[in-house]
């Protein structure tokens, strides 16, 4: 199953850092997502794009997670050579992850 079937996500950017949320549609799925979608797994998944650390923050009160990916936006929105300089589409890539 892809994450997309049970969760949604939005990406934000600050400088060269991307943050990607992961929010289950049904809060019952949150413990399972916490177990399966670890920072290490997200780091490996984005290894070609993310050149820095990945930190996972858990926000239990809303059953959601925030992945913060350092050195991921080609130097940041002003100087990146990428077409998607903000990394806005990265959330949709995360949702393609198989769990």
């Amino acid at each position, binding site marked *: 199953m892809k994450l997309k079937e049970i969760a949604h996500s939005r990406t934000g950017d600050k*400088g060269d850092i991307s943050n990607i949320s992961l929010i289950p549609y049904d809060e019952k799925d949150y413990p399972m997502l916490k177990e399966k979608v670890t920072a290490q797994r997200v780091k490996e998944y984005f290894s070609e794009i993310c050149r820095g650390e990945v930190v996972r923050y858990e926000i239990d009160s809303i059953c959601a997670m925030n992945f913060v990916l350092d050195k991921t936006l080609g130097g940041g929105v002003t*100087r990146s050579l*990428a077409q998607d300089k903000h990394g806005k589409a990265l959330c949709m890539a995360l949702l393609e992850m198989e769990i």
Partner: protein
Amino acid sequence: MKKIRIGSGAGYAGDRIEPAVELMEKGNLDYIMFECLAERTIAIGQQDKMKDPSKGYNQLLEARMRKILPLAKKNGIKVITNMGAANPLSAADVTVAIAKELGVTGLKIAAVTGDDISKDIAKYYGNDVLELGCPLGEIKESVLSTNVYCGADGIIEALENNADIIITGRVSDPALAIGPLVHEFGWNVDDNPNQMGQAVLVGHLLECGGQVTGGYYADPGYKDVPNLEILGFPIVEIDETGKLLVTKVEGSGGMVTTDTCKEQMIYEIHNPEKYMTPDVIADFSHVTFTQAGKDVVRAEHAASHGRPETLKVSVGYKDCFIGEGEISYGGSNCMNRAKLAADIVEKRLKLIGVQMEEYRTDFIGYNSLYKNQISDKLAPDHFSEIRVRCSGRTKDRANAALIANEVEALYTNGPAGGAGATKKVSEVVSICSIFVPREIVDIKVSYQEV
């Protein structure tokens, strides 16, 4: 119990105007905030000001003020905006002129300045640049602008002096909401940590305009959102204890749900326990959202932990040039023709000795967003069309132009059927950051009446 209603009139510099007009007409608002200043926008504003000292404010300021001023007067709504960008004083002058032209009278217009520390920047040449890992002095020749992310102090002062329209330069996005809340309810960081946390949450939920009412949320079949073409912008109703509701005008497009609020709360924060703003270090880690009705969500339990000792300065500097070219290939075997095209350009750039600091090839439609590892899993076997994009970063304009030209030259020198070539050379103004002690910022508010 005292309650106020704050609307969001814009989520970025170039946002639509109709939702703001709708809010000012039908939202029963006390305040409306227009967040129009991204990190790079301030540097662009400084460049505009260098060319013409009367410019440097938001390019849609005039158009917006023509709509806003009559409604602000008619419905007694105070307007708070960072549309001043690099030149709040000039923005206030323009606003006064528009009010006079429209015959709108009885408004006090305030300009908040003090975020621009360029006169004193030499004192901080020894401070390390966060992104570059060197002292600021090493890039001093390239520096174009230095603006401190200020808090709500200037906005609060203006409201205490009965300003109706408040135009700032660089302030944090949440400050546009924190200002009226502190003014109305007398909250402060020592006595009201929970309320100040809620105040930051209000600003954070409102700062991106339609993003909390269903904008940037829709994914047909997964997340359906009604009537995005008439998306209503958000309103927060908040009382003196800090209890708040997020909603929108009845009949407008979009929707307010716990999920739209969750996406927006996490947007562009890092550690939810320590969301740094100049006014307060907010803690969103215990926030809850409850659906209180159709398009009404209650948000509770934000908190805060004091004020940061240092403030971030956005430093705009002349960085580099980017040259880029694109061309499309279609039909059977188009991917192989696109790869041949990319190979030709790369070899040509070596042959003619183009000097580059970084170079990148994208196949748009295949790997331009996610590179190869992820794209390979998602890609089909055959593409009906592929667009090649070649881009490189250079120290000067001439080398950037050579990259762009080599892509265009594929028309007559490259693979068969190349189509729709475009080329572009951009001078890149980048933003980096240093931190300075908060005491050095000297906020000034000036007033004009019409």
